[in-house]
């Protein structure tokens, strides 16, 4: 499988601030790749380098097989970008901006544009200055999605969209995914979004990649929360390797357990006798929080 985006050991400094400190990012052609990180982690900085807007200070980067800095204009014909804060020319209407950006990119499909306007419920006749934040994002999204390009680079594209519109966004991206020939890099800090859409993800923090892989890969690194009502005292469970945050209240226990320690823990419970049991699968949310806590220590 070829890679649409390959960045290794990327370094970017702004004066004394090191925004990227050896970041790695590998996005395979045809996949939807989640790019996760808290505010200030370096997502936007990375994307700006990929787009040839900023120059990196170290490391190597390839985009669609080319050099994003020197071959920017050629590469840009094959991609579309939606920034986290779409700004519009105050005097141009939303429809005009969609057409303009599409044409500057090399053409857009008017039928696709009409369909997306309908689905996102956007009035294209309003002037740029009168759109709300959410509606400006819609203009950027429609302009990008109605161009026939190989790669979509979306930087927190749903900020400001209401939940209904976020749902529309997810449907549209899932449709793109089914087509199979489009690659999407989706930067986000909304975990449910990434969980719903992405094949693989890269988690970064402080300009460094701290985790990359499929969701299933990452679930190995997570813990399941178990709540149970027991028939007797759970001797030895609290001290079992891989069991964390153990709480006991009369006959009720609640604890988190590492995925690899799940089996011994369950065997212990069965031995004591289980009256009821609730197990909560690991969510990306937890994974995310835990990664960051681990990193902080």
């Amino acid at each position, binding site marked *: 499988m070829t890679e649409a985006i390959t960045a290794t050991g990327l370094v970017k400094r702004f004066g004394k601030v090191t925004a990227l400190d050896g970041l790695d990012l590998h996005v395979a052609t045809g996949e939807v790749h989640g790019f996760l990180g808290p505010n200030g982690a370096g997502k936007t900085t990375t994307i700006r380098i990929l787009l040839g807007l900023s120059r990196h200070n170290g490391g190597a980067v390839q985009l669609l097989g080319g050099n994003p800095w020197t071959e920017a204009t050629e590469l840009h014909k094959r991609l579309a970008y939606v920034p986290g804060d779409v700004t519009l020319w*105050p005097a141009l209407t939303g*429809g005009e901006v969609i057409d*303009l950006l599409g044409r500057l990119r090399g053409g857009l499909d008017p039928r696709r544009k009409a369909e997306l306007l309908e689905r996102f419920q956007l009035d*294209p006749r309003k002037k740029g200055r009168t759109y709300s934040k959410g509606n400006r994002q819609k203009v950027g999204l429609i302009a990008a999605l109605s161009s026939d390009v190989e790669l979509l680079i979306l930087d927190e594209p749903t900020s400001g969209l209401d939940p209904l519109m976020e749902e529309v966004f997810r449907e549209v991206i899932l449709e793109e995914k089914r087509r199979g020939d489009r690659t999407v890099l989706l930067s986000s800090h909304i975990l449910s979004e990434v969980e719903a859409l992405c094949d693989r993800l890269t988690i970064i923090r402080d300009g460094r990649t701290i985790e990359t892989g499929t969701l299933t890969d990452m679930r190995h690194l997570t813990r399941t929360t178990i709540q149970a009502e027991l028939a007797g005292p759970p001797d030895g469970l609290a001290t079992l390797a891989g069991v964390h945050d153990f709480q006991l209240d009369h006959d009720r226990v609640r604890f988190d357990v590492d995925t690899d320690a799940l089996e011994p823990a369950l065997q212990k419970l069965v031995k004591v006798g289980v009256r009821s049991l609730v197990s909560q699968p690991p969510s990306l949310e937890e994974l995310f929080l835990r990664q960051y806590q681990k990193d902080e220590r």
Partner: protein
Amino acid sequence: MTGAGRLVRLILRRDRIIMPVWAVLLGLVPAGYVASFEGLFPTDAERIDYARLSATNTGFVTLYGPLHGSSLGELVAWRAGFLPVLAGLCALLTVIRHTRADEEAGRTELIGAAAVGRHAQLAAAVLTTCAAGLLMGVVLTAAMVGQGLPAAGSLAFGAEMTLSVFVFAGVGAVAAQLTSGARGARSIALTVLAAAFVLRVGGDTSAVGDGSLRWMSWLSPIGWVQHLFPYGVNDWWPALLALAFTVVTVAVAGRLQSRRDLGVGQLPARLGPASAPAGLSSPFGLAWRLHRGMLVAWTIGFALLGLIFGGVGASVLDIAAGNQGLSDVFTRLGGSDALVDSYFAGIASIVGLIAACYGVQTTLRMRDEEQTGHTEAVLTTSVSRYTWAGTNLFFALLGPAVVLAVEGLATSLTYPDGDLGEILGGVLVQLPAVWVLAGVAVLAFGLVPRLSAVAWAPPAMCLLVLLVGQTLQLDQWFLDISPFTHVPKLPGGDLSALPLVSLTVVAAALTAVGVTGLRRRNVPE
């Protein structure tokens, strides 16, 4: 108004350098005139001669206003007649910067959510600007008294400047309520300032001739403050007009603000086309959409200037014919032709400098585009940085050519006796100097984008050379700083190609280095 005090402190902190600079500098400029007038015209008789000549010279009256006396103080106050325009300019820019520009950038929303009254920001901006105006007046009065001029006249002189600041703080406050963008607000306020100047010029130059249009000066706030006539009649009642105008405009701004929501203006936004016309499909089409409004506005402004200057040129001849003393002077200067020629040549460098401001403004529009994120959107399509910069610079470099040509044509409409070729040539030779100043702006934008605003320093410097250069009889090197000094004085002078070619080469080099810098840096930076 709750919280206005805290906002005043915030404004003072943000403007802690620039505000004292303009307030004190404009207050100190006239002090330089005192020494130079004392040096040039030491005796009463010489001053009377000079004053009689100047009071009827329409070129002088256009720039500085009417002159009614010949005492040292009166001459100095008259010579400072362009300063109220500059003070007004600083005032309106400051008010808009701290009201609409903040609101557009979303900073007002942050402040608005804190415990701050609805009108606090407007009040803080107006109060601080007016305080700067008071400072300017105090500095000026003190400097004049310090040079031994009468106290009463110096007070009126200070008041003239302070009131100019007050009036245009009011204009800025109203303009800030009308549009939803700072750029639009600035355009409206600048148009009012330009109109005030044009009305004053119309009325004052008419007063030199048959006086049929002299009432026009009384429609202009700049006319009002000049009619204080410091050191002469010391008339205080026009000050009341200016104060009343200030109070009314600020009150109107407050009312307008009460009636609108945060972030929107008064002028309702209409619906536009749902899809882009065929013309809007290239970088050039986009640049045309962005720059055409300014091009049209400046073209109209330059056409008006041309009509006025042409009309004034015609009256220069009439006066020369009707006044024996003047005719003698003209004959000594080389005949009435020479006088008219030097008038048009002098006007041409003023017009050139104004065109340079248009060039710089249009060049710096690229910085605005960059900061608002629009450039990023264009550069992530298949448009290269060179193409993007080129389409914008097309307007920054050729726009001034269009407006200068229009000015020349308009001049020859109201001065049909003149040779169209000579008049047109006189303004068009300014272009290389205009390009040098625009080139400095490209350089700043490309190499030190965060400091792009320094591109306004050269036009300011050239204006200073124009305002004080000849009066102070400064060294040639000082005059040489301004590219306009090197432009051949046409009509009348020799048309030599060397300075024009050299200036064009300098401009091209500045532009090339600037664009190369843009190609190499981060966008946005």
